[in-house]
């Protein structure tokens, strides 16, 4: 009897239990709990833009930690890849991550050259959902696709919103000289600046192009100083931004003309210091001192988790997570064919700059772009208090305008 028990009944009972458990786990409800989605960050973690890449990653981690790595019924696996700020490397990493991890979402960086190359791949492979932060107008313009979305404003908006606000403040500016970066983003920005100046009848004396890897821009500063311009428009980003603004201060450009930088991300301002920023005008997508509930809460949480005040890049990456989590929860789906139409129908929501909305026809989030003024060291209330918001604009491309004769929602999925 004992032998029958040990040889047949007990193993049979265990076998039954195994079958039962397997059966239970294969029910739809159990499968949904177990299902995993992959959130891939393919960003610039090395090179001159490394600081922004790290900031974006930290914001994503903050959101996922707050939500226990869950979005709706799905567990989120975070994978990261470094573009090394090179288009070819970015494309390779994107292809690798698509093949290996099959992500639902790829969140990427802000080098336009890298982003244009990656968006092209996304368009060809039809997915995954791609959040880009390049500022080149074409990313949600001529080179956009149904899978690509963007919060960062395009150069079109940056030039028309912030530059226009700056020119409104200084109506005496009749001649300007501009310095831009010698690659895709710089060419696009230069064209948009030229368009604004032309509309206003302001003479553009010269456009200087400087490589992103330059270590000294003294020749450009001397040329600008001797040009007789009323304003110097600086379109630099990353390491060269610090070099440009520092040397503009060093060569005394502020004494002979107005200086306006089209960019002004917090982590770049930290390297320059208030002595150089004093009296300069800058522009940015967001500022940590924005007087709205979203910003107040986000700054508080980010500072508590990472010990520093976040910049605009962190804000936009956190918002991407927030929007995707909301839609995955709402639709209960992890299918791009369900999520993309839902993103297009997003409508108005509370974002980093206040009330924001999705322009579905071009997959661009519409929000304010800010004009900032560099504070003097004596005006600072705390360490990161480099600028004050003195203006804002929200001028985005209109559907049907030259170069924008399309509707992304009509593209096949």
């Amino acid at each position, binding site marked *: 009897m004992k032998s029958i028990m040990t040889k047949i009944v007990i193993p049979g009972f265990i076998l039954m239990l195994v079958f039962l458990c397997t059966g239970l786990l294969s029910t739809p409800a159990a499968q949904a709990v177990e299902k995993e989605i992959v959130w891939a960050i393919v960003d610039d973690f090395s090179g001159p833009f*490394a600081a922004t890449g790290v900031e974006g990653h930290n914001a994503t981690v903050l959101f996922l930690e707050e939500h226990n790595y869950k979005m709706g019924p799905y567990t989120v696996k975070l994978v990261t890849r470094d573009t090394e700020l090179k288009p070819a490397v970015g494309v390779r990493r994107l292809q690798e991550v698509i093949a290996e991890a099959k992500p639902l979402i790829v969140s990427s960086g802000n080098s336009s050259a890298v982003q244009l190359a990656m968006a092209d791949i996304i368009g060809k492979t039809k997915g995954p959902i791609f959040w880009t932060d390049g500022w080149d107008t074409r990313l949600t313009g001529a080179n956009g696709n149904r899978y690509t979305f963007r919060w960062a404003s395009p150069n079109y908006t940056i030039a028309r919103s912030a530059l226009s606000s700056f020119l409104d403040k200084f109506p005496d500016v009749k001649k300007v000289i501009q310095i831009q970066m010698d690659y895709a983003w710089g060419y696009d920005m230069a064209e948009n600046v030229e368009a604004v100046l032309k509309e206003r009848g302001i003479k553009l004396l010269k456009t200087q192009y400087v490589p992103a890897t330059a270590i000294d821009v003294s020749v450009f500063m*001397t*040329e600008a100083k001797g040009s007789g311009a009323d304003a110097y428009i600086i379109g630099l980003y990353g*390491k060269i931004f610090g070099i440009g603004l*520092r040397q503009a201060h060093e060569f005394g450009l502020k004494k002979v003309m107005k200086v306006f930088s089209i960019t002004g991300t917090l982590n770049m301002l*930290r*390297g320059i*210091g208030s002595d150089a920023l004093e009296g300069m005008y800058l522009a940015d997508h967001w500022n940590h001192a924005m007087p709205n509930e979203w910003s107040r809460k986000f700054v508080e949480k980010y500072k508590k988790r990472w010990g*520093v005040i976040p910049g605009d890049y962190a804000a936009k990456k956190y918002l991407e997570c927030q929007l995707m989590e909301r839609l995955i929860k709402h639709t209960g789906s992890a299918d791009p064919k369900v999520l993309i139409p839902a993103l297009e129908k997003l409508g108005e929501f509370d974002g980093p700059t206040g009330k924001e909305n999705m322009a579905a026809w071009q997959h661009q989030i519409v929000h304010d772009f800010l004009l900032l003024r560099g504070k003097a060291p004596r005006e600072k209330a705390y360490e990161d208090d480099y600028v004050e918001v003195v203006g804002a604009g929200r001028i985005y491309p209109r559907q049907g305008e030259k170069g924008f004769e399309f509707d992304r929602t009509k593209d096949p999925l």
Partner: protein
Amino acid sequence: MVNIDVILAQVFNGIQFGVLMALLATGLSLIFGMLGIINFAHGSLYMIGAYFVWTCMQMLNVPGKFWVGLIITLPLMAIVGLMIERFLLRWMYGQPVVYQILLTFGLLLVIQQSVALIYGTTPLPLGMPSSFEGEISLGLFRYPVYRLFTMILGLAIIFGVWYFIERSALGAIIRASAEDPETAKTLGVNTRRVYTWTFALGSALAGLGGGLHAPLIGGLQHTIGTEILLICFIVVVIGGMGSIRGALLGGIILGIVRGIAGVFWAPASDFVMFAAMGIILMIRPQGLLGRGGTR
């Protein structure tokens, strides 16, 4: 029509940039000339020097902390150099050049990433000493005081190094160890120790260059040594590998060519550096003051 004041200011920009690059290239050239090592890690030594100055400035609360930091950085960088030579480079003497390149290039990457881990990737501010802020009138044009100062200081240091190597008794020992190590050894010279100290001197010069240049670049980042390395190599190739006078000449030529290009077409100011190197390599492959063939 370009004004004469702009032309003069651009020439000064060129000379200042050239002298700063020559200061860095002097260390690179010294290491190559005496040790026969092509040191790709030189750019990271420049970067560490800048970070050391920044660190000293954070820790010190004394007047003129930039200068105190710069002075403290010199022996610190010499110690870094001593350790690199003693524990890594020593095994490379007499080995094929490719091993030296792999080791020093690997070292560049390791140092760069280590600095990113320790200090983070956010740019760190290293402002100009307040007494050197602003511009000074040079007759026809005004020029930033700090740039003028770095130009004069850089020239003085390069002259000092040249004098030490070419005219002092200790310099004679270094040259003898480089040119004929076997004979030097038979005369009782500890050549290994000479190589170690030569590398330490080269490292200190790189660190000094980094510290002096830092206030001009608007934020320290771990990547600042990479681009500068390329320019240092151009200076050394133009001036002649292993020649201190060549490094100075190469730096100044490079700077002036760059400055004049800036007058007429500023975007070409970087391109002309490579063009100048190409022309020199075609006409005189050993460089302007290179002797062609070193230890």
